[in-house]
């Protein structure tokens, strides 16, 4: 009975995965190499590598990929550094304006990126930050910071205070505590926050487009035109989707092996 039950669950999970992941990705794979695929055919009648070739030979693609990776890595790292002290303060101290500050930190998740980017774009022009990597990085950090702070402070909260006290009594100074106690213990939270920042920064579109494009293109803004309603040619869009899919998927699958769900969930789960 119990056994029967769990086999049913396995089957259900399998069907879900097939239908929700394998099928859609498989279909865009087929589209990307199709040379004419008309109904009612269930597979393309003819295949071509033309769509891939066109993209891979595009000289603007490489800078976009490089930009994407550089921006994503810098955004992830800097948001971590910026978030760390603030997350610590929120996790460890109780103070009068705490609630207000917590709401303020969450707010960027809520306010449409367009509003922020349009406002910042004007200032960045004055500061010569518009259409620059620095500008894009700044505006993206603002987007990923809220969740990073949340998840890190969730992680910090779970570190027992006694551990720090113990380290102190053993003669550890502030730096040593951070280096040997806090950092190692918050690795799961940093991993979770880092992954979310990475994905968030990589797929970010509105802010990057307004602040950076077309001088600074990321893969996402560079390819957006091929996916938007205006320029959607299905085989081309399929190629683009797969190009966009690959880096995040690789990072995601790599990190998910060592990532702890509960940490990510805990950070987001208590707003």
């Amino acid at each position, binding site marked *: 009975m119990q056994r029967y039950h769990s086999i049913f669950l396995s089957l259900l999970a399998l069907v879900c995965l097939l239908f929700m992941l394998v099928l859609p990705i498989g279909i865009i794979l087929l589209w990307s190499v199709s040379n004419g695929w008309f109904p009612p055919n269930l597979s393309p009648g003819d295949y071509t590598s033309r769509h891939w070739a066109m993209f891979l030979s595009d000289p603007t693609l490489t800078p976009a990929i490089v930009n994407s990776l550089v921006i994503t890595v810098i955004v992830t790292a800097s948001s971590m550094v910026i978030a760390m002290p603030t997350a610590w303060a929120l996790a460890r101290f109780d103070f009068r304006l705490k609630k207000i500050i917590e709401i303020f930190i969450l707010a960027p998740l809520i306010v449409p990126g367009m509003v922020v980017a349009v406002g910042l774009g004007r200032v960045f022009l004055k500061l010569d930050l518009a259409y620059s990597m620095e500008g894009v990085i700044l505006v993206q950090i603002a987007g990923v910071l809220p969740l990073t702070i949340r998840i890190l402070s969730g992680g910090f909260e779970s570190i027992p205070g006694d551990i720090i006290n113990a380290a102190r009594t053993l003669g550890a100074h502030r730096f040593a505590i951070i280096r040997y106690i806090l950092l190692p213990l918050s690795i799961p939270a940093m991993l979770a926050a880092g992954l979310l920042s990475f994905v968030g920064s990589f797929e970010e579109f509105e802010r990057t487009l307004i602040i950076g494009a077309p001088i600074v293109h990321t893969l996402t803004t560079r390819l957006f035109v091929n996916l*938007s309603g205006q320029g959607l*040619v299905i085989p081309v869009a399929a190629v683009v989707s797969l190009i966009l899919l690959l880096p995040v998927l690789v990072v995601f699958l790599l990190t998910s092996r060592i990532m702890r769900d509960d940490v990510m969930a805990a950070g987001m789960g208590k707003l």
Partner: protein
Amino acid sequence: MQLKCLAASAAVIAAMTGAAHAADVTGPAFGDTFNVTDTSVDLSQLTRENFYDVLVPLAKKDGEMTFYSYWPPAPLVVFQNQIIPAFEKKYGIKVHFNSVETNVGLPQLDAAYKEGKPSPMDGYFSSDLPADLNEMANIRLTDILPNAADLDPSLAYEYRGIEHNGAYVPFHGNQTVIAFNSAFVKGDEVPQTFEDLLAYSKANPGKVAITSPLRGGSGSGFLTAVSHKLMSDDCVAKWMDLSADEAAADKLVNNSECFAPVWAYFNDLLETAQITNGNTDTLNLMANGVANVGTAWEDLTFSYVMGNQLPDTVRVTILNGGQPGGAEGAFIPSNTANLAAALLFMDEILAPEHQAWKLAGFASRSPKTELDASLIPAEAQKLLVPADIYEEGRISNANPVMSRVVRDAFAANVLDK
């Protein structure tokens, strides 16, 4: 060689004697003053004749420039694979090329202009023009570019109802059409009039796809075509008045009966036809066999069929009464930092060899009168609007203010129903 000497001497003469004359007759800028921030080029002295002599050395000093292009697939390839390599080779000037989604470069230009910064692009092939041409793009390019001498006059000074006086160099001729799949729509079923289209839709519910005028040019073109055909001459005249302002537009569109037959037609049509989210959305529906007839762009349909994204049984036509067509073009922002290079590049895009290349390869019709569709290979000719229909079928647009008001009214009177 001899020709070049001749041109050079002509230029010298023109420079010595013709300055006053040029300002009178073919003054290079349409404002009384030039407000270009890059003053390395004396625009008041520039003519078709002295163009290269004056600009080539200056442009080489610039050494580089940035060009924006909006997306339609064909022109992108034309720039990337044809024009820019040729230009770079010819002049040794590096072109930074950026493809952008439709007209997102315009707000950037606007923002940079307001902040007193150089424009992010030196030339921009866009489907729209900056709102304030007097300030932001006011060089009479079509009067000074040597390669612009044989432009179709109807395309040289006006675009989508905007009188730009030559600031917007027509590059890529296009035409809104009705596309149909001849495998399903045969013989006399092929709509020739708006009534035919309505009748076909009623007989085949769901088989006609109309691009939403809010989401794509083939849709707003169709709206223009219907208005042009169904409104009274008096109404059409008021509607096509290029000087119409917001108030006049509001009066005509919202406070007169002029558009009543247009809304009635659409409301009737959309009972059976479906409305789509864009030009490509319509074509994808036709590729999926869901729609047999749809509003489209001629060149986009052409490249879809050539790329096997549409069955090769798809054909295009223009309905009786005409459908809008024109030529999308490029302009130089007044706050460009590389004026000389930009001017040279603008000339390059009209070079006959490039224009012929894109015409033959992408059905991107040339605004130059000397090049016509006969350059397109015979087997691809069938994918174009037949020449006789094309000649009569092209109508122009109302001005942007009017178009916007009509579009909003369309949303309120048709889509909202």
